[in-house]
């Protein structure tokens, strides 16, 4: 039965449903890094909103502020981790030759990730999203998959690159 379906699949290409995981199964996807980068921007926005509210600076105030900052830091670090793994494990010499910008792009992402951990500069956080978008475009081009830019359906509603399946 399997061989029959596989034969038909080769002729008409059935839909692929991804069963994502983080174990070394050869599945790489920059989507996680993009979500993390969007989270950094969102946290910057929420931190600024929180400070501008002028709320009483009591325990609740500092608790929420600390949580927002911690989440921003965690996700900026996750961006760096996800991009490093794809760059280190998936990208091969022939990809570097085809996309010579890849090393400097990854280095910029590392630097921006650190900068966004240290501060609350929205422009820098948005730049991080844009650099990860470019990284995603390169990744999917290597995979031979077309991409499209869509606006994330949640705040901060920035454009993200994802595969046009």
């Amino acid at each position, binding site marked *: *039965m*399997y061989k029959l*379906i*596989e034969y*038909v*699949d080769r*002729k*008409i290409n*059935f*839909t*692929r*449903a*991804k*069963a*994502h*995981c*983080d*174990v070394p*199964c050869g*599945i790489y*996807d920059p*989507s*996680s890094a*993009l*979500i993390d980068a969007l989270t950094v921007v969102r946290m910057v926005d929420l931190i600024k909103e929180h400070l501008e509210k002028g709320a009483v600076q009591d325990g609740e105030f500092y608790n929420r502020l600390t949580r927002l900052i911690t989440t921003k830091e965690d996700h900026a670090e996750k961006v760096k981790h996800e991009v490093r793994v794809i760059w280190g494990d998936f990208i091969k010499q022939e990809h570097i030759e085809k996309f010579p910008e890849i090393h400097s792009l990854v280095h910029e992402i590392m630097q921006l990730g650190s900068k966004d951990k240290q501060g609350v500069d929205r422009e820098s956080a948005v730049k991080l999203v844009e650099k990860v978008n470019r990284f995603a475009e390169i990744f999917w081009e290597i995979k031979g998959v077309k991409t499209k830019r*869509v606006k*994330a*359906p949640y705040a901060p509603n920035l454009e*993200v690159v*994802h*595969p046009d*399946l």
Partner: protein
Amino acid sequence: MRQTLKLFTPIFNILKIVKVWGDSMSPLYSDGDYVFISSIPLLFNKIKENSVIVFKSPLYGILIKKVCGSDADKGLFYVKGINPSSLSSETIGPVKKNDIIGTVLLHIARK
């Protein structure tokens, strides 16, 4: 062959064959397995907890995951993989009913 198969398009709209790509549903479904999915249970609101669904994710593309909860009022479903290494339910986010392509009816394992 391709022309002949096109004749079966109406059938494919309610019964589709999908190839599993990845191991987050392992050991139930493994990379390379095929599943038959149908949209009929969706029409009769038969998607329950532990149903395995194939759906469109705005950020991840087409995914296969197990339903682990739902919000009937908002028509949202919460999903997760079976393998502990799967993306978490929070990372995937709630799945809208309209984004569900079908539920798994039959499994054809690779081995």
